[in-house]
Structures are given as C-alpha cells and as structure tokens.
C-alpha cells in the first residue's frame, strides 16, 4: 500500500514537474476585473461562476426551509409552525431546491465551465444565449421570491390541480410564472450544449473519445430541450383555465385533474434525470482519475446515459398509481419503471469494475464519490419498491417516498455535485483547498445524510404520510433522529462554504494537473484557464482515458 502511495506521489510530482511551464500572465479571472465585465460576460467560465453564486444562495435558502420543516417535526404536535405555514415551508423548500438549485446545479455550473474545455473548444456555440439563460434564471428567481414575499404558496412543488387552480390564491400563478420562466433558462442551456457538442468538438474528438461527463451532459440537454416545454405548456394551461375559463383540468368545465398529473410528470420525472445524470457523469470522471485506470465499459456507460434519458420519458405515471390511473396503464408503467434500473445498474457495476485492480487513491473528491455510489444505490434500489404496484399502494405519499427521492436527489445528485466541485476547484480557481477539511466535510455529509433520511424509510413504512406537521407520538424517536441527522448534514454542507472561498484567496497555487487526470481540461489547459481556454487546437489522438503516457512519465521519474 505504501508503495502504491509512493508511486502516486511520484506521479503527482511528475505531473507538476512536467507542467511547470510559465503560466500565462492573464487568466479568465484576472484579464478583466470590472463588475460589468462579470455581469455582461460572454465567457462560459465566468457564466458558470455566476451560476455558482446564484445556486449557492438558493441552496442556503432552500436549506433554511428544510431546517424549519425538521424543527417542526421534532415534536408530534404542531407547536412551532401552523399547518398553513408548514405547507408553505415545504412548498418553498421543494420549489427552491428543485427549480433554483438542483436543475441548474451541475449543468449550469460545471457544464458551462467544463463542457467546451473538455471537447477542446473556446466557448459554447451561442455565448449570448448562455448569458441570457443566466438572466432568465435570475428573473424566474425574482418571481419565486415575489411569490414568497406575497405570502407563499401551499400547493407543494408539484402544483397539482385543483390545489393550484380552483382552490389557489393569487400567489400560485406568480410562482408558476417563475417556474415557467426558469424553464426557458434550462432550455437555452440544453440547446447550447447540444449544438456545441455536435458542431464544435476539436479535431480528432470523435463521439467515442468524448469524456463521459460530456456524454452525460448531452443526455441531460436532450431532456431539457424535449421535456421542459411540456411543463411550460402545462403551466400556461392552468393560467388559461383560471383566467379564461377554458375547461382543461376542472371537471365542472369538462376537464380532468389527472391530465395535469400526466403533463406535469411527463416533464418532472425526466427532470429527476436532469438532476442525477450530470452527477453520474461526474462520477465516471472521478472513478477513472482516482483509480488511475480507464473507465470500464466506456461505450456502454456512454450509451446508458442516453438510455436513461429515453427510458426516463416513458415512466412518468409511476407517480400516479394511486391517482385513478387505469390498472392496465399502471402495469405498463410499472414494467417500464423497472427497466430504468438496467442502465443505472450498468453504470454502478462499471464503476466498481473500474476500481477493481486500479490504483485507488482516497483524495477528497473520491471520498465524495464513495458517498455518492452508496447513497445513489440505496436510492435506486428503494425506487424498485415504489415501482411495484402492490407496495406502492402502501408506501405512496409516505415518508418512504421522501427518503427515496432524497437519496437520489440529495444523496446522489448533490454528493456528485460536491465531488465535482472539489475535483475541478483547482482548475476553476487555480487554488488548492484544505484536503483534510474536505474529507471531514464528505464524512459529515455522508453520516448526517444517512441519519436524516434512513429513519424516514421506517417512518414511511410505518405509515407516516408526507406533508403533515403533526404525527402520532410513537413516531417521535425516528423523527428526532432525522432532525439531529439534518443538523450534522447542515454542518457538512456549510464547511465547504468556508474552506472553499478561503482557498480561493489564500489557498496554495494549484498546478496544471494536480490529480494526474487525462482529460483536456487538465492536460491542455492552465489552472485557471486562459480567457480563450487554449492557445492552439488541442491535439486529440487517443482514447480519452489513456493513462499509458502518464504512467510512462511516472516510471521515468521513479527510476
């Protein structure tokens, strides 16, 4: 083991020594410093950072609402929040976390920053659209903030009719308008990425030489383009019904409330894959770099990303098994839902096979990866309980569902995001962060997360429904456990909020390729990158995860 560690250190030094070329005088962070140069930038890297600031603020806001929910659930009685305020709190938590944080998290931050560099180009295909997408996102956020300030919305993030139509207050349409607007931001990002990947790859960068993160972003972008307009139309239809009296969802006008659920979930289930697919892409990069080995089953992982995007569009009605869906349609959707497990399983097994006989190092991004793979697997497996028609009748709308989707959307998606941020932080900022604190943070998040959400599987199985602010006394122990876990989780998330900004100003300067990775952003690009990423067309001759050159360099140094 010590020999392996020694070798790795040598490799790291080799990479640093080899790359000790003079850094360019300017990089994308310092070549222009005015506020206007940031707010009006067309540079994909700066836009990525604008998004990072935006989503970080939203994460804190959404987390604050989560804190309120968990504090209320410390006791069986509704003694902190009234039922109405509780409803508004979980709605705000869901809306902010999903539409303002999770959906733009990896695509808009890491995707924007890295995708052009990883395929060897200078920017995305439409830089102005890229900047517009950020301001559209910000405008949508303003509408949602307005809805909160006007008194909030109590429909849950799903905006189900008739709660959002017949029985809604005026704030629902303000919030829905916010979601409608944010959707266009998502579409613009997806459109930009699809065109960039199709048209702007460096010479030699064939489809099957692209990093798996790019494949994941491609699959995500397809969902964003194809799915998001449907939710926009659905929201518009709610508006038509409310203001023009057109019968679409209201039975009194000849409509059908379940139609809303069909249209909503046609987007919102694939939206889960908008959140998790990019994390799966990040995971593939992490496992390869920190195992010093090409990804096992590269082609099948690339194709499984596309398969997940496609399967993701034909499973939506598993959210509606108890809503009056026909039993035959339910059976079809149940079988199709099981099929999503296949491409997901392919990825997990391929990552494990990549680590097998690899030179695995335990740098902090890899610790996040380990957390990710465990939580994602538990989240995925418990999804099979819910796709089974019989058990779903019992578990639907209970805390089992809450635990399941948090394992995917927080355990999977955010753990992947954190892993990605830690992995690419030296590239983004040109600085190294405190590795020990990062590992502590990863451990706190993993432990805190499991204490928060694992008890909720039991709560749900025992029959505790979601979205209630009171519960029977015998369920208090598990709820207290969950709240205490949430406190640990919050500390785990706040810690990087301190050491990462600190490292930005005071951290050790990062070498060009501190992890010894093989993708273009590490091998051909300085840390931080120059304003136009590359001074020349980066050469792409080999498979993307070819470690033979780096290993040879390491061997030369060690002799």
């Amino acid at each position, binding site marked *: 083991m010590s020999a392996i560690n020694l070798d790795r250190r040598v490799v790291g030094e080799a990479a640093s020594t080899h790359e000790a070329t003079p850094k360019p005088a300017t990089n994308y962070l310092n070549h222009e410093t005015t506020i206007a140069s940031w707010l009006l930038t067309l540079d994909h890297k700066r836009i990525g950072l604008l998004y990072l600031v935006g989503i970080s603020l939203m994460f804190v806001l959404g987390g604050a609402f989560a804190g309120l929910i968990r504090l209320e659930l410390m006791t069986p009685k509704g003694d902190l929040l009234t039922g109405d305020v509780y409803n508004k709190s979980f709605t705000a938590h869901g809306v902010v976390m999903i539409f303002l944080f999770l959906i733009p998290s990896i695509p808009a931050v890491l995707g924007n920053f890295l995708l052009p560099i990883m395929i060897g180009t200078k920017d995305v295909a439409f830089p102005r659209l890229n900047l517009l997408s950020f301001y559209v996102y910000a405008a949508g956020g303003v509408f949602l903030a307005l809805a909160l300030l006007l008194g909030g919305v109590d429909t849950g993030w799903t905006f189900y009719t008739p709660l959002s139509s017949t029985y809604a207050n005026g704030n629902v349409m303000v919030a829905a308008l916010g979601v409608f607007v944010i959707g266009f931001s998502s579409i613009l990002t997806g459109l930009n990425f699809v065109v960039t990947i*199709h*048209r702007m790859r460096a010479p030699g960068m064939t489809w099957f030489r692209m990093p798996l993160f790019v494949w994941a972003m491609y699959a995500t972008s397809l969902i964003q383009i*194809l799915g998001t307009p*449907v939710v926009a139309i659905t929201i518009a239809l709610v508006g038509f019904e409310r203001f023009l009296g057109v019968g679409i969802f209201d039975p009194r006008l000849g409509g059908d409330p*379940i*139609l809303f659920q*069909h*249209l909503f979930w*046609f987007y919102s289930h694939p939206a889960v894959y908008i959140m998790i697919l990019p994390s799966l892409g990040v995971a593939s990069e992490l496992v390869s770099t920190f195992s010093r080995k090409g990804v096992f089953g590269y082609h099948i992982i690339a194709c499984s990303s596309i398969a997940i995007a496609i399967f993701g*569009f*034909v499973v*939506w*009605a598993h959210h509606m098994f108890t809503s*009056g*869906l*026909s*039993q*035959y*349609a339910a059976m*079809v*959707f149940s079988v199709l839902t099981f099929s999503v497990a296949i491409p997901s399983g392919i990825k997990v097994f391929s990552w494990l096979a990549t680590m097998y006989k690899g030179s695995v190092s335990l740098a902090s991004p890899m610790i996040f990866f380990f957390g990710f793979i465990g939580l994602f697997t538990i989240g995925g497996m418990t999804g099979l309980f819910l796709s089974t028609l019989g058990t779903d009748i019992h578990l639907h709308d209970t805390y089992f569902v809450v635990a399941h989707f948090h394992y995917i959307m927080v355990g999977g998606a955010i753990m992947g995001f954190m892993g990605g941020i830690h992995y690419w932080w030296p590239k983004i900022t040109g600085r190294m962060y405190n590795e020990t604190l990062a590992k502590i943070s990863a451990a706190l998040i993993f432990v805190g997360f499991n204490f928060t959400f694992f008890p909720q599987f039991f709560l749900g199985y025992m029959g505790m429904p979601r979205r209630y602010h009171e519960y029977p006394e015998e369920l208090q122990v598990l709820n207290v456990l969950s709240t205490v876990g949430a406190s640990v989780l919050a500390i785990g998330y706040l810690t990087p909020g301190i050491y990462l900004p600190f490292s930005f100003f005071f951290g050790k300067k990062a070498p060009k390729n501190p992890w010894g990775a093989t993708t273009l952003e590490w091998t051909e690009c300085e840390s931080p990158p120059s304003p136009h990423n590359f001074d020349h067309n980066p050469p792409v001759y080999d498979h993307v995860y070819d470690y033979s050159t780096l290993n040879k360099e390491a061997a030369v140094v060690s002799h």
Partner: protein
Amino acid sequence: MSAHNSANVEAHAGHPHHEPASLVVYFSTFSALMILTILTIWAGMQDFGALNTPIALGIASFKAVLVVLFFMHVLHSSTLTKLTIFASMYFLGILMVFTLADYLSRGWTGQ
C-alpha cells in the same frame, strides 16, 4: 485540388446549401393555408359526431406540416434538422400515446 474539393464537400455537409425558395412556393403554401383555414371554419360549423375532433386535428396537422416543410425550409434542410424535427414529434407521440393508454383503458375492469 482534391483537398479543395473535400473541403467543399465537408462544408456542404455541415451547412447544406439553401436554394432560395421561389415566391411561387411561398404564395402557393400561403394560399393552401388560407383554403384550409376556410375548411376549418366550415368543418367547425358541421356536426360529424365522433369525427368532429379528428377532422379538426387532421386539418390543423396538415397545415402545420405545410408550415414546417415550406415556411421553415425543413424540406430542403440537413438530415440532422429533419432528425431533430422527427425526434420532437416522436416525443410528442410518446406523451399522447401513453396518456391515451390510461384514458382509453380506464373502463377495462378485467372482469
């Protein structure tokens, strides 16, 4: 010379050559759309029973196809553009077919 030719071929593949559509095509398409609009209004005043909606949707779809093919130039666009249109329609088809799979089978009790 051959390199020049291959470069041309590549440029041609990447950016398909757009023949400027003649005014005759535009006006013919516009006329067809106007006629179909009159047909829509006429059909809206008739009672075809269960065929009311299919007939209205049929005329509307035909009009949409004319717009896409001629006004949006898809008829002479690259294969990638056609594939993009097809993919969008395919996904719309998934939405319609699977949603109708629920509505049309709700009366089936299995008895």
